[in-house]
């Protein structure tokens, strides 16, 4: 048999049929659901008298639209009636169709992309979909994980298959040792800066090389999370011993002989040595410095010692981004002052992120220039773990607010938003106009860079702390 990539192997193993129109039906192993992109899909099922084909493969949780402050009143505590209706609708739909849901007051509730891996719902070699573009996160486990639209959510519920076409293979290799203070977030932002936000379009990216192998599972999730920001539908890392150890003994993962059988299968999924890729990039880990975005697209990124672009007259896109961001051409990144700090989102809200950020803050106070700094753990269980390690106390005594799990200020559908023209150092993944609040200004950074910025009220080089 010819040499195949990890993506080729998963593709082949999930091929169900070729439809007459030339598209492929790909079998879906896991389907994650949240309140924002599912109501219209459930309506569609009802209208067509359909039910989920494999209800046991579906798990739901509310995350985008939930308050991160007081949860004591459960759903009744959601002040915005439209947000509340959306969460109630999710409950009703899950109840009606028998879908397993981690409800708002369940300690397992959290951002879909955090709870999937945490619960062992996400496993290597699987096809995973969710009506959310950052589903690419789950590719960290060597699964093929893709964001889909609401019509596709309905289609997958009804048929357990996705109508799709084979994408091209892209390899991104990072070899060598990352500098101290440089994280998976910096790696993924660096890559987007190099290949652009459309660089991965129509491709599935496989990340490889010694620097990627050395990342923790949480780091790999951060890396794959932003594959979509490079235009790719999915990003993946080959599963290895680290992956198997991580998934072992999680609530939803296979046990006993099934687990051994699974590991044997998972270990066979690695890209064959002579498999070919349609596109290949290779970078040296040591080139990567802590990254900060300065514009309104994730590709508008610089490193901490750099400046925002100096010449803008001939580039309308850069000019309009700097206008929106309220930055003068040539400003040093280190001179940019911020108003808010947000540590959270499916990119960086896992326990390691919180541990790393809290280390910077031990015994320190945030600058009085900071109007608000919040930490939003990715799930109720991450929150609980952090509290058992005393991380909440470190954050709180430094001046951060300690919140409940959800997407929060990553997209500000709930009350956590930037005010007009406020500037935020954010560990999320999108710096689009208005993303964190109407006319708000977002700079994407790693959790330790966000923590460092909180101390001075402006960006600083975390390597110097």
């Amino acid at each position, binding site marked *: 048999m010819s040499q195949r990539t990890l993506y080729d192997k998963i593709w082949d193993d999930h091929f169900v049929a070729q*439809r007459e129109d030339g598209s492929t039906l790909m079998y879906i192993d896991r389907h994650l659901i949240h309140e924002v992109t599912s109501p219209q899909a459930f309506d569609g099922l009802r209208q067509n008298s359909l039910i989920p084909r494999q209800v046991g493969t579906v798990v739901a949780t509310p995350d985008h639209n939930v308050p991160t402050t007081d949860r004591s009143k459960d759903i009744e505590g959601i002040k915005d009636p439209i947000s509340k209706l959306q969460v109630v609708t999710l409950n009703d739909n899950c109840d009606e169709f028998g879908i397993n849901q981690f409800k708002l007051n369940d300690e397992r509730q959290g951002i879909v992309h955090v709870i999937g891996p945490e619960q062992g719902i996400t496993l290597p070699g699987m096809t995973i979909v969710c009506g959310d573009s950052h589903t690419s996160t789950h590719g960290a486990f060597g699964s093929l994980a893709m964001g889909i639209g609401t019509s596709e959510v309905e289609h997958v519920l009804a048929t357990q298959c996705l109508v799709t076409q084979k994408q091209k293979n892209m390899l991104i290799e990072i070899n060598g040792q990352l500098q101290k203070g440089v994280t998976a977030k910096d790696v993924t932002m660096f890559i987007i800066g190099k290949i652009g936000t459309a660089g991965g379009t129509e491709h599935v990216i496989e990340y490889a090389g010694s620097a990627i192998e050395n990342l923790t599972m949480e780091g790999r999730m951060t890396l794959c999370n932003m594959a979509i920001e490079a235009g790719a539908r999915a990003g993946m890392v080959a599963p290895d011993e680290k992956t198997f150890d991580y998934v072992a003994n999680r609530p939803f993962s296979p046990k006993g002989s099934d687990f051994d059988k699974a590991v044997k299968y998972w270990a066979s999924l690695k890209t064959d040595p002579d498999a070919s890729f349609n596109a290949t990039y290779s970078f040296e880990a040591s080139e990567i410095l802590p990254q900060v975005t300065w514009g309104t697209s994730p590709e508008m990124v610089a490193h901490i010692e750099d400046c925002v672009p100096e010449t803008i007259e001939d580039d309308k896109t850069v000019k309009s981004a700097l206008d929106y961001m309220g930055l003068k051409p040539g400003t040093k990144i280190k001179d940019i002052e911020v108003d808010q700090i947000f540590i959270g989102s499916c990119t960086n809200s896992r326990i390691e992120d919180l541990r790393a950020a809290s280390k910077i803050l031990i015994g320190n106070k945030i600058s009085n220039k900071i109007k608000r700094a919040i930490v939003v753990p990715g799930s109720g269980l991450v929150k609980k773990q952090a509290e058992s390690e005393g991380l909440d106390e470190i954050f709180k005594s430094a001046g951060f607010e300690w919140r409940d799990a959800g997407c929060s200020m990553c997209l500000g559908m709930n009350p956590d938003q930037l005010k007009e023209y406020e500037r935020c150092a954010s560990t999320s993944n999108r710096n689009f106009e208005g993303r964190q609040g109407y006319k708000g200004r977002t700079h994407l950074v790693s959790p330790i860079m966000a923590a460092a910025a909180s101390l001075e009220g402006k960006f600083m080089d975390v390597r110097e702390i």
Partner: protein
Amino acid sequence: MKNSNLYSGEFACLEKANIDTDQIIPKQFLKSITKKGLGPYLFDAWRYNDEGYLGKKLADREINSDFVLNKSDYEGINVLIADENFGCGSSREHAVWALKDFGINVVIASSFGDIFFNNCFKNGVLAIKVSQESLNEIFKEQKENLQKQIEIDLINQKIKIPNIKSINFDIDDFRKNCLLEGLDDIGFSLKYESEITNYENKIKKLRPWILND
């Protein structure tokens, strides 16, 4: 819903790269639990000078008269032409629902965000990729001659704009048929019911941890 082969009408250009779905329909409108009524909020932050919310009345809005879709010349357009990587970012299908509700049934760009591109066809919106050169030619023709007439021949895969050589485009057969025939996608897939069942029986043995019922 079937579409006819010919789409004719008027176009407007948004000469900007990387227009993400957060711009097409900002987050506060994703709270909707239906597909309808999002047209008034299409490009909300660009179309209005005040902050919008779901249900805010048009009469209460401050219109940004500089924005192309607010210019009287472009009233009633049904084709939107934008620069590369249109619809990148979030998977929100609300972006397509908003375009459609506004009256746009064709979008043309040199490249698209993948998920947005798929979402278009699922809703009967034709998304066409053309080369950057063709795109620049169209932008120029609109600017210089205030051109807005356009005709798209889906069967023959051609875009016709006065003063410009007709532009050929590629489209997958399944997407083309989907638009022309107005296929019920789920119904079509369910014709493969026995293949799906066979596949499930196979993986129950091969990978028993997938379907643990």
